[in-house]
């Protein structure tokens, strides 16, 4: 009988990625608020200070734009900084450094420089942290040429993706879901990488393609299990990297199933789900579609505090099941889910 595979939480997996990359490359350093002595609010940088010391594990003042800008500068001259935003909503304070600087410096210089910077941190929705700690903003970053955007859904992916992000010569926005930090999953002892720009088919199915990254991947898998009991086979595709998007894998699946549902926790208008639908339509023959694609997203509101309200605004299991039923033309489709 084979040994049980090792299980780690996503936070532990990310921690191990940082540790391995810092051991491998002395140019890697981490900077952020409470990441050293405290080990990070969510323990992603735990114990790194002891091993690598305060020059490479830098407890920073509360200065998000400052540390991100410093990360850009360090990247320009040969370091590989990993900047932690304690809560990813604080990226609003950082957008100039990220969008006007990290994303554009290579292009504006005519290719003289590269910016191997990772900006990572948690999306903290679903736990009552309210409107300024719960936003899912990947659409903003996908819209900024020059950035790479990644969002893992499992501990395995989280570790392999972060290692690839650190080795990447372009700036990477790395979005983690706080509710997934404590979730366990298999992570092999031996080293591996999850490549940038490669989607993963998390579940094979023939009836409907559901595209979801990050926490919604888990929601999609849950919906798929439920629907399987009713004889519906859902294929779940996790793009893992949102930009560059592995449209080939998505298009191939939709060409097979003829039906597309995209699940995303960002606001609906101008959201990433819309982008996936549009890009799929660029790549799939109209005749191969059996139904109009459906987006399951957060509502176009700030994220509210109260449990009942937050649940109402964020996509739910019922919403995903309803959307799948809708593209199948099944009667159980709830009326409130619209195209």
């Amino acid at each position, binding site marked *: 009988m084979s040994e049980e595979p090792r299980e780690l939480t996503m936070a532990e997996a990310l921690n191990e990625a940082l540790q391995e990359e810092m051991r491998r490359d002395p140019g890697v350093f981490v900077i952020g608020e409470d990441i050293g002595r405290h080990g990070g609010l969510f323990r992603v940088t735990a114990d790194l200070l002891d091993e690598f010391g305060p020059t490479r594990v830098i407890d920073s003042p509360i200065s998000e734009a400052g540390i991100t800008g410093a990360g850009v500068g*360090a990247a320009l001259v040969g370091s590989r900084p990993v900047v932690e935003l304690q809560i990813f909503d604080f990226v609003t304070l950082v957008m100039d450094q990220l969008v006007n600087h990290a994303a554009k410096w290579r292009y504006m*210089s005519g290719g003289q*420089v590269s910016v191997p910077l990772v900006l990572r941190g948690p999306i903290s929705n679903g736990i009552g942290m309210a409107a300024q700690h719960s936003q899912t903003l990947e659409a903003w970053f996908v819209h900024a040429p020059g950035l790479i955007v990644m969002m893992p859904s499992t501990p395995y992916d989280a570790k392999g993706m972060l290692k690839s992000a650190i080795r990447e*010569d372009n700036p990477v926005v790395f979005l983690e879901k706080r509710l997934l930090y404590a979730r366990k999953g298999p992570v092999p002892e031996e080293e591996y990488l999850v*490549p*940038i720009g490669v989607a993963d088919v998390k579940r094979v199915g023939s009836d409907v393609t559901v595209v979801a990254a990050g926490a919604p991947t888990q929601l999609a898998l849950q919906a798929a299990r439920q629907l399987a009991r009713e004889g519906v086979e859902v294929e779940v595709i996790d793009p893992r990297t949102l930009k560059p998007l592995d449209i080939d894998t998505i298009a191939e699946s939709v060409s097979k199933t003829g039906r597309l549902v995209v699940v995303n926790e960002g606001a609906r208008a101008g959201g990433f789900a819309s982008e996936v639908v549009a890009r799929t339509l660029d790549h799939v023959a109209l005749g191969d579609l059996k139904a109009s694609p459906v987006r399951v997203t957060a509502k176009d509101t700030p994220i509210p505090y109260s449990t009942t309200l937050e649940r109402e605004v964020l996509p739910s299991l019922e919403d995903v099941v309803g959307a799948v039923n809708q593209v199948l033309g099944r009667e159980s489709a709830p009326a409130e889910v619209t195209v």
Partner: protein
Amino acid sequence: MTAVGEQGVAAVTLEELYGTMARIRAFETRAMELFGEKHIRGSVHPYIGMEAIAVGVCSVLEESDFITSTHRGHGHCIAKGLELRPMMAEITGRATGYCKGKGGSMHITAMRHGMLGADAIVGGSLAIAVGAAYSLRLQGKDSVTVAFFGDGAANQGIFHEAANLASVLSAPVIFVCENNQWAISMPIAKAINIEDVAIRGAGYGFPGEVVDGNDVLAVREVAARAVERARRGDGPTLIEAKSYRITPHSAATPTDNRSPDELAYWRDRDPIARFGRHLVENGLTTEERLAHLTDEARDAVADAAAYALDCPYPDVGEAETDVYAPSDWQRPGRLS
């Protein structure tokens, strides 16, 4: 000719200082003309009247040191040793420019000269300079990084974040505030309620020094101290160089609401003429020598402009290159 060699910094001749200032003046003058002739798009933000700052500061730097610059950045580039031909080619949008015509007047970058880049977001590159300085020290190098910025940038949040971060990281960075008194139409007296931006250094725990920004030797002396301090590992310095831009904010925005008296006052303190007088009066050079240096500068700029205008525009295929550094994930059609 006489060399000035403050302790611990590169020696330079007085004629080199004069010649570099003259080259900046000639370059900016020609750039304004080229804008008028529609060879330059967007705008040009001339450094005329402020030459002594870039030249004084960069004269104490080594090739291995770095600078960051601003939208008014041509002077910093020339002072740091960039060549006029690829500079002119860049601002005229040619393929042979430092940035292949993708950056233009406000974004000249030249890594081989330690020019990390010019930034058109006011204050935007201050934290970048701090991070570069910190990283170079982490790598065991003794390079310093100079962040040039204007008085207007001193009121941006990022200035304060960069200053504080530089201090707590003890980063070898020198903040050079070029106080030219005006942020387009906003006089500094209305923008800040203190006499000297330099005192803000104290708020972050490092020295702030005021210097006459139209006196190249005074700037050099202050910069030498700051660079030595940074190299020693004692952290940042804030230098406030008081100066004035003699021209309007930019070639594209010629409206100027400053008083003629004020302009006349500062024209009389032109840093190049003033340095020239100092050299001649002290018998350090002759009028003829200075005239020769000025001619040399004009000739070099004329050559650069002629070269640039003869260079091809970038191939349209270049529009989609350099968005990303080469990487495993790239294959055709995947950029979106």
